[in-house]
């Protein structure tokens, strides 16, 4: 089934380590997004990309970086993880015409 694939599904990471969360979509959507979900805060936008080669900062970008080398892939990197980055991370994509965003199944990250 076409959609968004995130990897890993879950990860326990030591503080200070570098980590890349992977996201791949096969719907040829132009726009992609990374969110983090924390209890009581909903989903907050970390970074987004409206098209390959461009990225933008969302609501909570500090400590995270992204790249968009091609249409399908949108990795999220934590350069030096901290415990406050413990969260569930969702990748999403949209075709940019106002239709809905489609979401991956999430990556549960625990930083210890």
């Amino acid at each position, binding site marked *: 089934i076409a959609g968004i694939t995130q990897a890993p599904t879950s990860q326990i990471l030591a503080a200070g380590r570098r980590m890349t969360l992977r996201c791949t979509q096969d719907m040829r959507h132009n726009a992609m997004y990374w969110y983090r979900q924390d209890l009581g805060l*909903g989903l907050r*936008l970390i970074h*987004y990309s409206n098209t390959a080669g461009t990225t*933008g900062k969302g609501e909570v970008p500090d400590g995270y970086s992204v790249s968009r080398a091609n249409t399908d892939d949108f990795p999220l990197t934590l350069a030096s993880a901290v415990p406050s980055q413990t969260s569930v991370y969702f990748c999403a994509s949209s075709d940019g015409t*106002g239709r*809905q965003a489609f979401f991956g199944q999430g990556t549960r990250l625990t930083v210890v």
Partner: protein
Amino acid sequence: AQSVTQLDSHVSVSEGTPVLLRCNYSSSYSPSLFWYVQHPNKGLQLLLKYTSAATLVKGINGFEAEFKKSETSFHLTKPSAHMSDAAEYFCVVRATGNQFYFGTGTSLTVIP
């Protein structure tokens, strides 16, 4: 800037009674609005969307929402709650830059 406010963090209803989940939006223009549902330990599923067509929008599983510009509201309703409706519900607005911004969520409990 566009944003949404979900007025209730928790709602409890008895099975078979109506559901009302409230959402107000802030936007300087007619926005695109969405409701997503997240069942425990699952990803996000689109319930319905408003994109400036009919103001009463019907979604999946018997849910519907009405866009009221005069009240800047987009409340989600269902005539009769089912046990399977217990979940977290998110109101979402799509911003002019094509980003999607989430409310903080409403947790729906259905009492047998």
